[in-house]
């Protein structure tokens, strides 16, 4: 931002005179804090607006002023004073090198001011970029994003259960019940138990079922037939079904014990 005197106020009074060098009067400190972002900013201002030649700054005087200033400002904003002081030191260094007798040929990049100029120009570009970013429309300021209402439908989704979770639950049951030594359940036993459920389901639906109807000789393998038979025996043993036969060699009937 480029300032004119009308924008700079000290204790409510307009600043009548703009600085001609890098020295900040202590009573104008707060103003400078707000108006300039640091020594680069101030220097840039002086160069661009007042055609200041950085070599024209009375360095010895400036340094003396700064020492007084730093003494005064020890309590507050010391780091700011340090920034300006550093800049003064840099300028003094540049000036002293410029005063040395020049070799006949001096390359552009050997000019001790080149580095300072590079920094000033980089800072200037950033300063303008910042202004541009500041001016761009932004969401929440100039950009309004569509945000109409919608009814959030609570789809009552049933919980998902994974096999791992099921096994974990069973493991916990066993752990707590200390059933492990008595209830190791293998694949074979699970097949039997599955068939037990299937037979019970069938008996529940059909009432009485003839024994051979529970075996599908055509489509089921031997292992499955055996498992099916074991399931019938287990059901009988657990008293869950009744097996009846009127006389030898007559059909054997199964019925759920409960279905009477």
């Amino acid at each position: 931002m480029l300032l004119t005197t009308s924008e700079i106020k000290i204790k409510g009074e307009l600043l009548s005179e703009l600085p001609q060098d890098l020295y900040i009067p202590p009573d104008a400190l707060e103003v400078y804090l707000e108006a300039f972002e640091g020594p680069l900013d101030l220097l840039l201002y002086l160069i661009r607006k007042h055609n200041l030649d950085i070599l024209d700054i009375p360095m010895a005087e400036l340094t003396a002023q700064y020492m007084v200033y730093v003494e005064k400002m020890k309590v507050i904003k010391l780091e700011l004073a340090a920034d300006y002081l550093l800049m003064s030191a840099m300028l003094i260094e540049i000036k002293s090198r410029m005063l040395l007798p020049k070799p006949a040929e001096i390359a552009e990049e050997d000019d001790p001011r080149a580095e300072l100029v590079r920094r000033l120009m980089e800072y200037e570009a950033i300063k303008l970029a910042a202004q541009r970013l500041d001016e761009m429309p932004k969401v929440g300021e100039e950009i309004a994003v569509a945000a109409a209402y919608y009814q959030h439908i609570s789809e009552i989704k049933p919980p998902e259960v994974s096999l791992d979770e099921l096994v974990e639950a069973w493991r916990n049951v066993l752990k707590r019940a200390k059933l492990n030594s008595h209830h190791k359940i293998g694949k074979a036993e699970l097949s039997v138990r599955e068939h037990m459920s299937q037979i019970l389901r069938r008996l529940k639906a059909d009432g009485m079922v003839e024994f051979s109807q529970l075996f599908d000789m055509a489509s089921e393998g031997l292992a499955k037939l055996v498992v099916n038979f074991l399931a019938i025996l287990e059901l009988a043993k657990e008293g869950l079904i009744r097996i009846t036969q009127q006389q030898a060699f007559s059909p054997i009937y199964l019925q759920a014990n409960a279905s009477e």
Partner: protein
Amino acid sequence: MKEPDNITEMKQVLEAALLTAGQPLSLDDMLKLFAGRMERTTLRMLLDELKQDWAEKTLELVQVATGYRFQARQQFSEFITRLNPERQPKYSRAVMETLAIIAYRQPVTRGDIEQIRGVAVNPNVMRQLQERDWIDVVGQREVPGRPSLYATTKHFLDDLNLRSLSELPPMDDFAQSEIPLDN
């Protein structure tokens, strides 16, 4: 931009504001849009027209307690909700353990389950599993009270991506190694 000076422009300002407000706008809010150069009756008329303009669209202009807002028509809510799904609910430990017992020990009665878990089975637990169609009653045990026998269903196997119960991890795979035999 100059102030809107005809019905079309006024409706456009209203529409843009209502679509981007993120909350219902009261009549007073909407008057602010026009910097005081709008009568309440005109505003109401514009809102009516806007409502008509959107009659066949994806959103509708509705009046709620605190003002007017655009909202997605009901038939789109289900799809939009997919963008922000609710957290998947989980079954309680009681439900999971009951299910595991029925899966591994079927057919079992509630009494069996209670004996294995050592605590009473809440009827609600059985109901949840039955409503899910994961367990059903396959018979009764012939003991006093004739308790129901529960087993897992075909649907349970489908949902867990199993072809048969024998694909459940057999318990003796880890019975020895992972469950301490402390007796």
